[in-house]
């Protein structure tokens, strides 16, 4: 066996062995009972097979008729002007609005200076990625309609409605304004999906510089904001000596995080036992905990939470988001571009069309450029330009491919 592949196959074998070793199986009695039940069923089926053959002929005829009447509806199609729109095609509005019409009567209109791509089309709806700018969507309400607008780390789920979405990739900010119907907005930096209906409007942000307001004057930074100090929040300091009532109880780390008070939130998490939280909290909370530590300026704690999320909830969307954030920490914090590149590759492999895919590919490009990996950087640059020609790393990518 070639030495070139043996390192890879040995590592794969070890990973598989470990996964199989940790695998939970039903009790042996249960497994054996299932085997016997299936054996019995097949035995009965074998004895009935002559009768079944006659019946099957009739059934096939009935099925063909049924299939014809219930055959799946054809996927939607999209046109811009008179030109059909292909998947992954870049839709750029330039100086004028740009309308895409769908075969079910729905329309998506890009405002001037906006850019989007059509990622997916099926019989039930479409997925549109809004890269920047403003999009006005009028989705016709139908049974089982399923539409999605992806904007950076956010997703807007739609069944039938009229709304407007504006996305600023630099500030990682999404604004949604409703005109009719309802939508649900989710995102890696939101703890839970948010429903909007009627004429509501909301702004969603992921960027730390916007998401972290200055601490309120009434709540000064606690002296013990560092992980080693006893983390007593300002609210706890002010609490009366008697047992606090629920209303007076100091806010937990998650409440503080939701208010954007990340240093206080981290201090509260330390008070509860940061490492214990990493073992106890659910997937969404762990991502939040890592973000809190990252935004509070403690990369070691952030990495601890993200690693716990990767290990405990492997395969989840949160675990993939943690891979991206670990790459970001390695890139921005330690300047370890090789580690960052591997984390971004893990993210892209797990979520090739994910909310952070553009950023992960861009940073991969930047990491390869900084590491002097010219050949890989040129390949990544070409890949980046094909997918995100208007992206934040497009200028670097163009300089690398010599455009």
């Amino acid at each position: 066996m070639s030495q070139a592949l043996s390192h890879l196959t040995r590592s794969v074998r070890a990973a598989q062995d470990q996964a199989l070793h940790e695998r939970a199986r039903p009790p042996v009695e249960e497994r054996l009972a299932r085997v016997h039940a299936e054996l019995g069923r097949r035995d009965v089926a074998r004895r009935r097979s002559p009768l079944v053959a006659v019946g099957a002929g009739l059934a096939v005829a009935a099925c063909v008729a049924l299939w014809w009447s219930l055959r799946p509806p054809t996927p939607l199609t999209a046109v811009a002007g008179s030109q059909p729109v292909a998947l992954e095609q870049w839709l750029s509005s330039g100086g004028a609005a740009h309308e895409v019409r769908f075969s079910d009567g729905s329309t998506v209109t890009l405002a001037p200076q906006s850019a989007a791509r059509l990622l997916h089309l099926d019989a039930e709806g479409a997925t549109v990625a809004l890269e920047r700018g403003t999009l006005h969507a009028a989705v016709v309400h139908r049974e089982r309609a399923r539409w999605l607008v992806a904007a950076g780390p956010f997703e807007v789920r739609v069944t039938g409605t009229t709304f407007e979405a504006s996305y600023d990739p630099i500030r990682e900010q999404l604004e949604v304004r409703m005109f009719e119907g309802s939508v649900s907005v989710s995102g890696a930096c939101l703890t839970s999906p948010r429903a909007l209906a009627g004429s509501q409007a909301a702004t969603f942000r992921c960027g730390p510089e916007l998401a972290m307001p200055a601490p309120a004057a009434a709540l000064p930074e606690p002296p013990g904001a560092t992980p080693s100090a006893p983390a007593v929040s300002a609210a706890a300091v002010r609490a009366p000596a008697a047992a606090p009532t629920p209303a007076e109880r100091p806010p937990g780390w998650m409440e503080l995080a939701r208010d954007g008070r990340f240093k206080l939130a981290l201090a509260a998490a330390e008070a509860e036992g940061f490492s214990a939280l990493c073992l106890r909290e659910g997937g969404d909370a762990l991502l939040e905990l890592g973000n809190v530590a990252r935004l509070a300026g403690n990369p070691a704690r952030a990495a601890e939470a993200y690693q716990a999320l990767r290990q405990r909830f492997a395969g989840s969307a949160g675990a993939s988001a943690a891979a991206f954030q670990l790459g970001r920490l390695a890139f921005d914090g330690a300047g370890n571009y090789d580690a960052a590149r591997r984390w971004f590759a893990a993210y892209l492999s797990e979520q090739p069309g994910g909310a952070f895919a553009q950023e992960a590919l861009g940073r991969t490009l930047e990491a390869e450029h900084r590491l002097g990996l010219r050949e890989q950087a040129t390949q990544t640059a070409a890949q980046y330009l094909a997918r995100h020609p208007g992206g934040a790393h497009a200028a670097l990518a163009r300089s690398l491919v010599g455009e």
Partner: protein
Amino acid sequence: MARPVLKLRAETLRLLAPVDEAESLVDALKVRKPWAERALVEDYTAPVERLITRVLGPSSDLDDLVQEVFIRALARVDQLRDEGVGRWLGAFAVNVAREALRKKRRWRWLVSVAPEDAAESRGHGAAPDVMAAMRSLYRLLDRMEPDDRVVFTLRAIEGLELLEVAALADMSLSTVKRRFKRAESWLFAHAARDVLLSDWVRAS
């Protein structure tokens, strides 16, 4: 006659049941002794899972495929000879895995975008680069002809000798050699161009 690979729990079961001390697992299976069927499932689930996983990679259908192996084995237990329960079951496992591959290829035109397989990310303690490499490797293997893939995975990942591969895959030794060589060259060429696998190939 010496009884082949029976481990402690099966041994305990056997002691609890009034059986002939000289009775082998093979003999007991042929007359449908409950202790023997339980011993078979208990002792051979892990090796069967391992063989299927090597060929298919992480699969959410693993429990069903393992169950299918035992169903086929117990339905044809009269064909069992004394050459070894492990090899006999292994042949069923390889066959079930190969059928799963062919079925997947038959239907892939229908499922244009396969949903993320939750089982893919199992391997809790494995490093992310290994998990990513494993996914990339099996994505490449998905493009390989099923018989070539069976031979390659049994030889290169499971580490079996070519003769053992031939016995399990029901092929001649020369066919196994030819298929392995072809699969290895193809995989090396494609891995070297894969963004996640190229470093592994180069590092070697």
